[in-house]
């Protein structure tokens, strides 16, 4: 099996692992980490496709690779906004629960 196919298949598993964590972990921070893992799965899949596109003397297609750099930076910004939202939620409600009905007595 070629390197890029191996990593592309692993990326599919990473998306599944992240999706599972996002559903079963109740704490929003854990969901955020799981979502980031799912995101990296998409990135690795894209990177493997870039490697498949090696041509013209380049080891990989530079267009998807450049977009990946953009994607990583934007993912960081989105994570930072989410963390700020989450901290604010805890500050104003004293709970990180995402349940429709907050626990009684709050």
């Amino acid at each position: 099996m070629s390197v890029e196919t191996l990593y592309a298949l692993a990326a599919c598993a990473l998306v599944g692992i992240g999706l599972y964590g996002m559903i079963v972990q109740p704490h929003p921070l854990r969901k955020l980490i799981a979502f980031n893992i799912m995101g990296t799965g998409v990135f690795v899949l894209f990177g493997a496709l870039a490697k498949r596109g090696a041509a013209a003397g380049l080891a990989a297609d530079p267009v998807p690779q450049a977009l990946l750099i953009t994607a990583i930076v934007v993912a960081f910004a989105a994570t930072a906004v989410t963390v700020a939202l989450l901290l604010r939620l805890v500050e104003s409600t004293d709970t990180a629960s995402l349940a429709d009905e907050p626990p009684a007595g709050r």
Partner: protein
Amino acid sequence: MTTVVGAVIVALLLWLALWTVVARDAFLAVAGFVVYGLLLSLVWVRLAGIDVALTEAAIGGGLTGALLLGAVGRLRGTEAATAAERPGPGLRALAALLALAVTAALMLAVLSLPDPAPTLAPLVVPNLQSTGVGNPITGVLLAFRALDTLLEAIVLVIGLIGVWSLAPDHAWGGRPGLRYQADPDGILAYLARVLPPIGIVIGLYLFWAGADHPGGKFQSATILAAMWMLVQMAGLSDTPRSDSGWLRLGIVVGPLAFVAVGVFGIPAAGAFLAYPEGWAKPLILLIEVALLPTLVLVLALLMNGPPSRHGDAR
């Protein structure tokens, strides 16, 4: 041999991802995620993406990890309450089934990819010379797909506006977080005096080398932002006030210069963000120099979080 190395990396990567997702508490999950980010950089090297590997190590693993670590400390008390909301075994099994189905569908798509793979590399290589840069990734980021990079810079600024908007009313325009206190003769303060000169040189080298070699403004900005935060954490300098005019100017100078160069392209070369013949390299350099302060400030300020206190009270 390469397959064996690849298989070992993949096995470690999947095991770490799974471990991070099911870890007992959030702190362990974050620790797992940081190690996962470092391993991921190795995957990028294996996939011939040195520039991506640098970005992943600096931003994906480093900055995101530090951000999550800071959040874990402040969310300690909320974990026990949400643990009760953990879904039962039935729902967990269903979630696992769904995840497996998604993975299987993606794998099927991967195995039925067209051969030979579509690629834009043959278009990039002959046109790279006209941009004056030698690193094809930089060429794509600042010439062929400059619009994406412009939008990304704007997204970063919007992200910062989003974070700042979460400030409570009384702290609006103030400084984020607590002022860090550290022993002025301690090891942290010592490192915060010794490391920044070295870090700034490395950061600027990566910035300059990015034109022809792996590196570039994002990786460089991360290192410079990290140096600034080290100085803050050692208590040598306070986090900046978010209503400072200089700060706000530094934040928007990158996107504004980028848009100005884009508009200049309309009369000069016939299209938004088009570079006239022979002007590509200086214009790219102008954009990169203008983007650097924006990236450094925005990355560091995103880590600092929303303003939470006023004045210079300690």
